[in-house]
């Protein structure tokens, strides 16, 4: 027992060292000029995507409810926090106003999460998918018509407070908070809802409560990611938060494995860097994403599909054996 605790302490220490180590290496490389502005931009987007993917994984992977409006929550967070730094907290120094703005962005996204989640998640069934989908579109049309945040022209002149340090440590914090949530009693309750809602309810778990809890947690982090994004770009437009963005995040979750945090991080990194490298085939990107979704689902669940994969594997092994 004592040894176990020691091991755990060591593990935590190693993780912390790893986190700081990666950050130190990247900082040094940036200062040396090996990582130029273009690359550090990609690194920053990677961190933002990690926040988005890990938080979506909480609802889609662990809670087992499909959300198609993550970009909508991101938009809420982005606009709210941009408005905060530009207007509300404009007199405060950046070091105070930026985290405050991110918090406000996240909290407003959370409030929207409550408004959508409470009527929807009380019900059994797949209403959440379509309602979040509609929500994403509605938020976008509302933003297009709100003149005080720029409307269709976009909201410009946002101070560029986001840098790699902020994004990196916020991503780390998000991952740690969500992992801790999942490993806690509450996390087990959330997973039990996914496994069998009726059985969970019969065991005394307040399923509606946990569904809403996981959903608004995810909404909050999406809002924070949106705030980071807004202060990185300097200008935000409603068309950046379309359905395609929500699908992009979903593809990352699905590719990383639903309910798998490590996988989600890896796929967020890969799917942020890969499209940058493959600019030449970018017109096929949405189609490839769609195919990834379909094939991943079939490969995981269809007996016929599994059989085909097994046969192909066998053939390859046989060929190798013959040679």
């Amino acid at each position, binding site marked *: 027992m004592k040894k176990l605790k020691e091991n755990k302490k060591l593990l935590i220490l190693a993780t912390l060292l790893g986190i700081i180590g990666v950050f130190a290496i990247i900082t040094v490389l940036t200062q040396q000029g090996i990582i130029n502005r273009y690359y550090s931009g990609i690194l920053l987007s990677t961190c933002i995507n990690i926040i988005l993917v890990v938080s979506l994984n909480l609802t889609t992977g662990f809670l087992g409810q499909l959300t198609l409006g993550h970009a909508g929550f991101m938009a809420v967070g982005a606009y709210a926090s941009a408005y905060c730094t530009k207007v509300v907290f404009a007199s405060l120094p950046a070091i105070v106003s930026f985290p405050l703005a991110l918090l406000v962005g996240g909290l407003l996204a959370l409030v929207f999460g409550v408004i959508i989640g409470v009527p929807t998640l009380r019900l059994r069934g797949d209403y959440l*998918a379509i309602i979040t989908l509609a929500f994403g*579109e509605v938020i976008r049309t509302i933003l297009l018509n709100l003149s005080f945040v720029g409307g269709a022209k976009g909201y410009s002149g946002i101070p560029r407070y986001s840098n790699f340090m902020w994004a990196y440590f916020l991503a780390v914090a998000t991952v740690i908070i969500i992992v801790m949530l999942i490993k806690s009693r509450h996390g087990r309750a959330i997973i039990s809802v996914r496994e069998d809602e009726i059985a969970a309810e019969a065991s005394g778990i307040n399923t509606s409560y946990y569904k809403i809890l996981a959903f608004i947690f995810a909404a909050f982090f999406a809002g924070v990611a949106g705030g980071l994004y807004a202060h990185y770009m300097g200008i935000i437009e409603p068309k950046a938060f379309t359905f395609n963005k929500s699908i992009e995040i*979903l593809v990352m979750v*699905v590719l990383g494995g*639903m309910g798998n945090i490590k996988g989600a991080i890896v796929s967020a990194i890969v799917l942020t860097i890969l499209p940058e490298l493959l600019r030449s085939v970018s017109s096929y990107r949405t189609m490839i994403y*769609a195919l990834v*979704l*379909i094939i991943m689902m079939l490969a995981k669940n269809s007996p016929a599909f599994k059989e085909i994969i097994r046969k192909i594997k066998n053939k390859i092994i046989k060929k190798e054996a013959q040679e």
Partner: protein
Amino acid sequence: MNISQFFLQLINGLNIGSIYALVALGYTMVYGIAKLINFAHGEIIMVGSYTVFVCTTLMGMPIWLSIPVSIIVCAGLGICIEKVAYKPLRNASRIYLLITAIGISFFLQSLFQLIFTSNPKSFPTIIQLPPLTLGSFSISANYYLTFVVSVILMIVLDRFVKLTKTGRAMRAVSEDQGAAQLMGININKTISITFAIGSALAAVAGILYSSSYPLINPFMGSTLGIKAFIAAVVGGIGIIPGAVLGGFILGIIESLTKAYISSQMTDAIVFLVLIVVLVFKPAGLLGKNRKEKV
């Protein structure tokens, strides 16, 4: 407030509402039988419109021939989608099915975007009838024809589901799949027929919609699809008269808000209606609350 203006908006609402109702019927039938939100349903509307466009504008087919071609193509597409993407996952968890459905919808959208680009194409004029004059104002042929065609199709569908053997099989499968199978009903065939009928209705809705709003693009199906789904939920998903009621209610609300409140906030108001219905009547206006069985 001007009364004739109000009536004009009401007619407008009935026009778009009957299209919503047709699409919502497809959603509701598929949901009733396969317990699946068929996200690709909206895209079938788009495929239907593009098929007519390709047949007439690019291949020079006469219009009366292009409409049945489009209906058949869509029905076939519906069956294909079911066989390829949904059937293998019938016993899997629901979320996998939903993700596949989203994938299919997204795939069709991007495929058509690649083929036809995202520039809108102009849809051929299909309806060349004189407008109907009623006293002081006239109703364009598009409007009354959309309404009449939709109502006829709804009545036919209702009779079909209630009176024919296939219709009875469909109702049985949606009630209890296992029991229906034990009674000798071919489940696969029944589900295929349901998808075919739903998709054919979507094709008709697409053609009617495009003749009222004659610019088609690869994304036209998604908004129409969402609205129709909302209509289906408002009326009570899985219930055929509910879809019709929801469609008309939604169409009228939409055109009245466009005229009297704000044209930009229409979508937000429709969304609000959905939330309110879900709070007070989760099973929809015509739905009955059922106890969940273990």
